[in-house]
């Protein structure tokens, strides 16, 4: 195996893992800080993609379309939290089922609003050469995007008033209440941020994954597995799991076939859950 091939495999596997992480981070934040599994996460990703697409169609440049998508999904996320999630606190499986129903509604609504045919926005035609291999620049840039996203969420959680409140609410709920933190307001914010991150993912990945009503499905499925395998330490755990599972599956796909890559992903998930019945981070000391 030549060196340049190995280098491209490594780089593109890292990019695959980063794409998975970008798509998963919102889910991880919501699960880590609220204990809620949002099964409509993939549909929020889709909403983000369509928002960005619509924005570019009415003349907004793509870099401005991304914040628009984030704002849209955050708004919808906050509304959903107020109307549905709030009523189901502490009932994790009910929340899962309700958000799944929500996903179905979003999906069909997208078909009604946008139809089944939407033009793509195209990927920047930049590429670079490693030995004999040519790589598209944009997917590789996702490694950087994932790192920035991770840093942003980390900063948000550790250096902002909201972040302190959010962490206090999940780690020391009674104490948080005693010092006057309104946990339901914090939760609304957390859910909105989680959905905003999904919207951001949908918008930033739009050049790679064209907007279709069902675009979020496979990402969401792998995202759930990632978050659940990661366990309670949502942020670090998910980053490591995404890197391991997503990167591993991509390397497997490079040397064998993508079907084997998928099987690898699912079998590794099962194996990790067998070894770590409560997620890999169940016994970690860090909390973020």
């Amino acid at each position, binding site marked *: 195996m030549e060196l340049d091939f190995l280098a491209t495999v490594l780089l593109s596997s890292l990019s695959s893992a980063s794409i998975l992480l970008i798509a998963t981070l919102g889910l991880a934040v919501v699960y880590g800080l609220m204990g809620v599994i949002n099964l409509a996460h993939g549909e929020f990703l889709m909403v983000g993609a369509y928002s960005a697409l619509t924005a570019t169609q009415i003349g907004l440049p793509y870099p401005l379309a991304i914040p628009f998508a984030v704002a849209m999904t955050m708004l919808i996320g906050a509304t959903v939290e107020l109307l549905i999630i709030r009523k189901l606190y502490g009932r994790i499986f009910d929340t899962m089922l309700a958000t799944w*129903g929500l996903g179905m509604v979003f999906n069909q609504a997208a078909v009604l609003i946008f139809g089944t045919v939407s033009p793509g926005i195209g990927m920047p035609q930049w590429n670079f050469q490693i030995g004999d291999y040519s790589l598209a620049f944009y997917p590789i840039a996702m490694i950087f995007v994932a790192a920035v996203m991770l840093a942003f969420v980390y900063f948000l959680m550790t250096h902002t008033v909201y972040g302190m409140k959010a962490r206090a609410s999940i780690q020391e709920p009674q104490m948080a209440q005693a010092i006057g933190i309104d946990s339901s307001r914090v939760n609304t914010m957390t859910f909105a941020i989680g959905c905003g991150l999904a919207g951001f993912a949908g918008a930033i990945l739009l050049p790679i994954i064209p907007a279709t009503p069902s675009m979020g499905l496979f990402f969401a499925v792998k995202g759930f597995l990632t978050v659940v395998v990661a366990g309670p330490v949502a942020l670090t755990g998910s980053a490591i799991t995404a890197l391991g599972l997503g990167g591993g599956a991509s390397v497997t796909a490079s040397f064998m076939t993508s079907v084997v890559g998928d099987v690898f992903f699912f079998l590794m998930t099962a194996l990790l859950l067998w070894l770590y*019945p409560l997620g890999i981070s169940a016994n970690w000391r860090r909390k973020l």
Partner: protein
Amino acid sequence: MFEKLHSNAGLIFPLIVAGAALAFSGALDPYLAFVATSWVIFGLLGLSLDVIWGRGGFLSLAQTAFYGLGGYLGAVIAINFAPSLGLSLLWALPSAAVFGALIAAALGYLIFFSRMGELQSTILSYTFTLLLWSVTQTFKIDIGAAVIGGDNGLSNIPGIILGVGEEAKKLKPNAAFACVVFISAVVYFFTRWLMRSNFGKIVDCIRIDIEKTELLGYDIRKFQVLNFAYSGAVAGLAGALFALWANYLNPSIFSVQEALLVPIYVLVGGLGTLAGPFLGALIIGALSFWLGGGAAGGQTTLILGAVLILLVMFLHNGFLGALDNLWKRYLPDPNDAARDAGAVKIDTEVLDQILSEAAEQAGPAKNLSTDEAFKSFGGVIPVNKVSREFKPGKPYSLIGPNGAGKSSFLKTCVGIYRPEGGTILLDNDDITRAQIFDRVHKGMGVKNQKPQVFGENTVFENLWIAAFARTKDRAAADETATRILNMLGMEAQKAVQASALSHGQQQWLDIGMVLCLAPRVVLLDEPAAGMTNEETRELSLLVRTLAKHTTVVVVEHDMEFVRTLEGHVTVLHQGNLFAEGDIDTLRANDAVLDIYLGRGEHV
């Protein structure tokens, strides 16, 4: 009369419905009979989930996997045998049920024996279905006359054939409907019987409080796996019926959409009701059939999604659950009796007698000892190399300020926490690594800090299930439970739901359940919490009597209570043994006062 009807509603109404369906099956329009057959089959699939989720408490998203695998296997066998021999049901159903059960048992072993978290379990079951979905797309194999062709599926599956031989014809839609209704009814009534049997009662307890069930000595993992296997068998059976109904199978049976449709059937009808999934499948089937016909412009998914959200939010118990609540309002409330409960009066003679008999049956009291037991959570070390021996005779009290590690030490002895170092001995038996239920078998009886009772069950059922764990015999369990019930003075509350009892009464019930186990070592974590002064006095009497027959360790905050126990007192501080002696000596000990008041050099 109405109360009787209510308690047998799950028998009578399904009998009427099944009977009516069979009676009128011939008069149905053939196409409706055909479509309705699928609803009954989906109901059966829903029943399989209700068994493991509504009763067992585990939301499995692998039901369609067992359903599909059962269907495929049953179909392959039927394709090979039915054309020449007839009797397609005979070939397909048993093999599918066995296959479904085996696969479920294997998956269940993975989940329950590793003691996976509940979210992790659900997601793993989902992973299993997804894995099948991706693998079967390209899975091609010829097995005799059956051609499994990847995504093109498996065709030429015979219909339902009851006759024998080559000429036997498949049933017409109406007869097939009647046949499927009959089979489903048989499965339903069997499931109902199973869920009301001892097995079902234990499964119910596992759902309500898994830790307590294990603390009664039941090997919960075994029951969970068995229950899952049964649900797999029902799902496999439903899959085979579906294969014979559709005459065609394809990997889409393992799809995400299919997997998530099953919980909807269950939720719509009513979780845990067993009959509910059939009603749910009927409603959803009729709804999607009607909408699919074009009446609502084909917005089925939109409407189904909205229905799901509304159901979860406003009708969590489904149709049957809501009906049940409505009906109960017009029935006398059995929990009324909880309000007239009198004070508990412990009769030491009766107690002595019970305990002596227990000693005859379960052997002499055992010593509990720890040697350098160690447990840490991250940087916190709640149990730091504690070595101590506890013997019968007088009660032992563990005291210490908040966070001293008293409860953690107890939990380490019980096995709720796994120690990282040291050994724990029961007499000379090393139980450091033993499972919780195993320790209970060996004679440990535990009452945790919060009263742990099965809230949905009656007081008597609570005691009975504890007694049955030891006696394994219905009559003996009846007798033991009745004696303890009488001793606790709770005869009037026999039929009251445990959740309706006051906090103090729940403590007594919990203690009663521990007594039913005839334990050789008793560990009590703050038993006096929530009790009145009178009750505390009775409790002290009970603990002292108990200590004459068994080893008793009590963790307690209430110093007055500890004093009345007149036993040996151990002070724990920051996970270490700090001081020992009787209560009066310790009261005079300045160091002990220092740690309690948080002053001085010992903090």
